[in-house]
């Protein structure tokens, strides 16, 4: 048996959730929480470059939808 086996847990842990929680401290100041979560999830799942493109595209779409509804 390996020494590390002593620390095996049967608790249901969500590594992705833990990663997002732990990453929050390292994100740029001033970002809205929901953007942080979207960005970190995407960063983990599809990689940094694509995540940046997706988040920027999402922001543009939201801004566009708000603008055609007359909300500024």
């Amino acid at each position, binding site marked *: 048996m*390996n*020494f*590390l*086996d002593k*620390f095996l847990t049967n608790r249901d*842990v969500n590594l992705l959730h833990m990663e997002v929680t732990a990453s929050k401290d390292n994100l740029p100041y001033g970002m809205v929480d929901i953007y942080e979560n979207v960005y970190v999830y995407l960063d983990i799942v599809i990689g940094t470059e694509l995540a940046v493109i997706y988040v920027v595209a999402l922001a543009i779409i939201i801004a566009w939808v708000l603008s055609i509804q007359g909300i500024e």
Partner: protein
Amino acid sequence: MVFPKNLAVLLTYQCNFSCAHCSVIAGPYRREVLSRELLHKAITEAAKIPSIAVVVFTGGESTLYFDLLVEGIKLASELGFVTRLVTNAWWASSVERAREYLVKLREAGLQELNISYDRFHAPFLVKYGGFQNVLNAASVALELGIITLIGIAELRTLEGSTIEEVKKRLREAGLDDIMVIQDTPSRLGRAATLPSDMLPEDNVPKENIRCLNAMDTIAVLPNGDVTLCCGHIIALPEASWFVTLGNLRDLSLVDIVTKMRRNALAMALRFAGPLKLLKKLGEENPPKFYSLCEVCYYIATQKRRELDGLTAESLLELVSGER
């Protein structure tokens, strides 16, 4: 599942250089080589782990076992992995020789080349041609469409920045597209006696720093051991047990990774960080560390008894910030 993302294969500890900062203590006298059987096992089983995207071939100097290296890259490439080679570029003594090596590697599927060059590597590379080797390898790699970067272990010395010097020489050679990154030396292995005033102060870890290498890059060592990171302690017998998950001779890579994802110590290193773990182990006045790997080494060699007193539950409390 998000982890691991990378599989590092340390094909051998043998190296034609004996750099003073080498934590693996690689050198010409080392003879350990990963067997062909375990190389195939590691890569084919990695293909069953969807989170792994990149296979990195490193060592030692893995090009010393060129046929085995090409075989590994070919297999990894066929299975859909991005492949990366870490090398000291000894083989690129002329453009022709660089092309001879790189064409074979490219045909096998190599996508990324990571050349190690700094004040530690330079004296050994002189024997094979010097910095011109780096230029030869980089220019041919660019020509063949291999993404290339140069990894530099930067030191605080009177001679100035190696990174700036290398960037200047790359610009002069028209190789502006080559990326240069800073590697972090640790005072471990052969580097244990490096004077601390030579190490960059910005590497000194802060308490809330977690280890982004833990769980992210698993490593297969020449003896078949698999570790939960690719840090500087993995090849040091007195400390490697602290990050060793199992051996490929006994378990499949899938089983080893499954165990890692359920391991509270691995989670503590990634999500809380080695310094918080050290504090939990009762260390109130730790020595000054110049990298997170030094913290893990300290825990493995000085805090074994305290570590025995921990449980998976207490480590999960550390991760969740309880108590």
